[in-house]
């Protein structure tokens, strides 16, 4: 459905004027996208955990992170949009999330070798889960359209990416902390934005919806891990 239920009703003038069938069909389509998204999201997260476990067992070098994330990013930009409307899209999303999981392995091995590392990883993992579940639950029950956040979130993300590029060469831990905190906040905003777009019919493709939510979860986890690592003197 191209229009959200709310927009549809607004354009028709009143709720009473909207045919009941149209409302029911719209609600059914939204529920289907939402159900498929959460199902695919849970499977891709599980798959990432498996590839991360394999990567940790094989003790792959730190360069794996850069290569995996780079290839996953290129696939997400150039391959995924061409395959989202076919069954090949499922294979591509699993390849992307598998690669991102593989890249996590070396990072997690570094944290595990630190004195409080396992505790930090567990806290970051639990924290990410709580943030995602709470924000998704809020977006699902608030019945609001958070698509007005789009401009603010994308502009904020651009600024943070530029700061992150600068900090690769500056190496300031204070700036790293600010960037991590900003990414956690922005990705939290993206969870509200993406979930609200699914509910209001702005996103009707469950593969793209899964990709958006997965990236938010992945970025929250990485940055929470980094923030807790810095603050915990690791």
């Amino acid at each position, binding site marked *: 459905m191209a229009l959200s239920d709310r927009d549809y009703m607004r354009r028709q003038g009143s709720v009473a004027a909207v045919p009941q069938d149209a409302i029911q069909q719209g609600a059914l389509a939204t529920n289907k996208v939402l159900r498929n998204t959460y199902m695919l999201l849970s499977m891709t997260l599980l798959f990432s955990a498996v590839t991360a476990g394999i990567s940790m067992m094989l003790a792959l070098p*730190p*360069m794996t992170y*850069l290569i995996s*994330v*780079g290839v996953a*990013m290129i696939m997400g*930009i150039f391959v995924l949009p061409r395959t989202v409307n076919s069954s090949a899209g499922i294979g591509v999303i699993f390849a992307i999330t598998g690669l991102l999981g593989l890249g996590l392995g070396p990072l997690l091995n570094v944290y595990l070798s630190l004195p*409080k590392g396992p*505790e*930090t990883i567990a*806290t*970051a993992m639990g*924290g990410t889960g*709580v*943030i995602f579940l*709470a*924000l998704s639950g*809020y977006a699902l029950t*608030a019945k*609001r*359209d*958070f*698509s*007005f*956040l*789009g*401009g*603010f*979130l*994308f*502009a904020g*993300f*651009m600024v943070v*990416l*530029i700061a*992150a*590029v600068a900090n*690769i*060469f500056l190496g300031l831990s204070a700036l790293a902390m600010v960037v991590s*905190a900003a990414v*956690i*906040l922005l990705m*939290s*905003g993206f969870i*509200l934005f993406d979930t609200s777009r699914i509910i209001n019919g702005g996103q009707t493709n469950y593969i793209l919806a899964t990709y958006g939510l997965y990236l938010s979860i992945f970025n929250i986890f990485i940055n*929470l891990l980094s*923030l*807790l690592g810095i*603050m*915990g*003197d690791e």
Partner: protein
Amino acid sequence: MDLDWMKIGQAALLIMFIVVLWPAARWWSKNSPKAEQGDWTAALLPLLGVILFVALLVMMVRS
């Protein structure tokens, strides 16, 4: 030397990401729907919750 190449690789990836995301960022800046009354409060409240929760996690790791 390896570390330098890692830094250059990371920067190249992020710059590529900025270039690719730029049109989407411009599109959303121009075409975002206007917030209705109470929308900003509804969005900022859960984000404030996230800030407090992260602060709690930081305190847990430091203790």
